[in-house]
């Protein structure tokens, strides 16, 4: 089954594209990015997490909070068999207080800016400069969470960096935290090819193995090989033309896995 793609282009450099392959939907294009100036004034594009993914992460976290609180109460009640009821109430009161105010902050402090929900959605808290936030900043952004339940979504919706009140106070952002890309890099390039051609060929080689129909992959590789034969036939010298076109393409351009 081929790739069907629903594409939504939003303003201000936001591009969301989702593709369906064999009935499974996955994100195939860039998310919203905001530029900051890093060291030596070099531009860095932070993949800012929007209202949707952050709200979903928060929803998952509140489910986790409920489970932890319930587990604490049950644990305290079990303990009540062994200690006086007064101390059990103390445990429940103090424990719930700490869980209520510290659940998010503690997770972010110990997890490098990630809570359970953020881990599941691959999000992370960073400073406005893309660095690691200090403990104080993580505390600040979580202590005002109760206020953010009221005004946070609106603030995130109108802010290009999707910052809620806590983020503004702490000087933090929430970004997508994806694994480093490991796609083939071309070791040889036909003269005159620009970045666009290179990106297309690399993207094709990265996804050729996962294409459902090998015939489609072979047909697409053949088209690229035709172009290479016209631009730089010397790259194909010594290669067996009867072999798999995708393999020929890899050898001709000396594609190495990143």
């Amino acid at each position: 089954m081929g790739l069907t793609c629903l594409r939504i282009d939003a303003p201000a450099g936001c591009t969301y594209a989702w593709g369906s392959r064999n009935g499974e939907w996955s994100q195939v294009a860039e998310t919203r990015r905001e530029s900051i100036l890093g060291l030596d004034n070099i531009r860095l594009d932070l993949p800012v997490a929007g209202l949707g993914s952050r709200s979903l992460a928060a929803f998952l976290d509140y489910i986790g909070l409920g489970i932890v609180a319930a587990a604490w109460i049950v644990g305290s009640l079990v303990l009540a068999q062994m200690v006086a009821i007064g101390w059990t109430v103390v445990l429940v009161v103090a424990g719930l207080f700490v869980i209520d105010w510290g659940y998010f902050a503690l997770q972010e402090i110990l997890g490098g800016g990630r809570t359970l929900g953020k881990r599941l959605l691959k999000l992370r808290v960073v400073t406005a400069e893309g660095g690691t936030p200090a403990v104080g900043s993580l505390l600040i952004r979580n202590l005002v969470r109760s206020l953010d339940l009221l005004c946070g979504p609106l603030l995130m919706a109108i802010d290009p960096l999707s910052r809620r009140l806590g983020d503004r106070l702490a000087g933090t952002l929430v970004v997508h935290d994806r694994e480093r890309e490991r796609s083939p890099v071309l070791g040889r390039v036909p003269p005159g090819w620009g970045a666009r051609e290179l990106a297309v060929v690399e993207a094709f080689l990265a996804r050729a193995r996962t294409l459902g129909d090998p015939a489609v992959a072979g047909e697409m590789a053949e088209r690229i090989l035709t172009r290479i034969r016209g631009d730089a036939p010397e790259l194909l010298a010594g290669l067996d033309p009867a072999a798999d076109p995708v393999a020929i393409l890899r050898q001709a351009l000396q594609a190495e896995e990143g």
Partner: protein
Amino acid sequence: MDYSRFVRLRRPVWEAFEAELAATRGSLRKASYGTLEDMALRYRQVLHDHALATARFPGTAAARRLQSLALEGTRRLTGEGRQRPAGPRVFFSRTFPLAFQRQLGLLGITVALFLLAAVWGLTVAALRPAVGLALLGPDAVRGLEEGRLWTSSLVTTVPPAVSSSRIATNNISVALTAWTGGVLAGLVPLYVVLLNGLMLGAIVGVTMHYSLAAELLEFISAHGLLELTLIMVSAAAGMALGKAMVAAGDRPRAQALREASRDSLTVLLGCVPWFVVLAVVEVFVSPSTEVPASVKLVLGLALEGAFLALALRPVRLEVTTSTESTP
């Protein structure tokens, strides 16, 4: 430089940097100085390669790899998280007093507002006792009519430890709410200060009406002074946020808010252990008939004195060299 030459020449640097990031994944603090120096150098090289790749080869695998490598390097090597948090000793002997002393002006305003509200509450309760009684609730009023304070229920209806934990968590919640509410232009801490002042004045006025003021003052003498001080300190911390929000001065509002929130959070965190101590005193000492009033008063003054001595202790400013943006 063409793409393949760029990748061939620079790839060893990217791979070395990736390996260093992987090797120090657990904690950067355990890395040796030499490793850190190497990482800083390679981070700079990766950043420059990223800039070149973004401009010359946008969308290519190398550009995307450098993009994610530059972001990861920035996150791991820069930012506030590299600084080790100060331990409790440094916090209470240095960080907290410095932050507290920077907010003395706002604390002065808070205390003045509290006293005004207390005098107003006292006057209203003295002139119109019904208003004060309405604030206390029917159970407390019934107790007053029987010649006893409602405070005795603190230890008679529930175990002292339960009361103590409830009081501590309640007071800390009030302090946190006063602080967080500061971002609403300082209105919430203002409300907390005025309400507490008004309530105290009114309650003293009502107990005077029932000739129980001496008992009330004895009850609050051990914990009340510091408890009110801490509430006012928390409210002043909240007002610092409100001030930054409303009148940021010559700095961007975001920066003013960030600075104010750091200082005020430090002050707030410095108050938390005292709330716990006070909750224990309020339950185990304040209602006790075995502890003489003079001892309670001395304890209250000692607690207040200890807090103020810690908060106002002279701290010498250190000249530090900032390396914030250099990894």
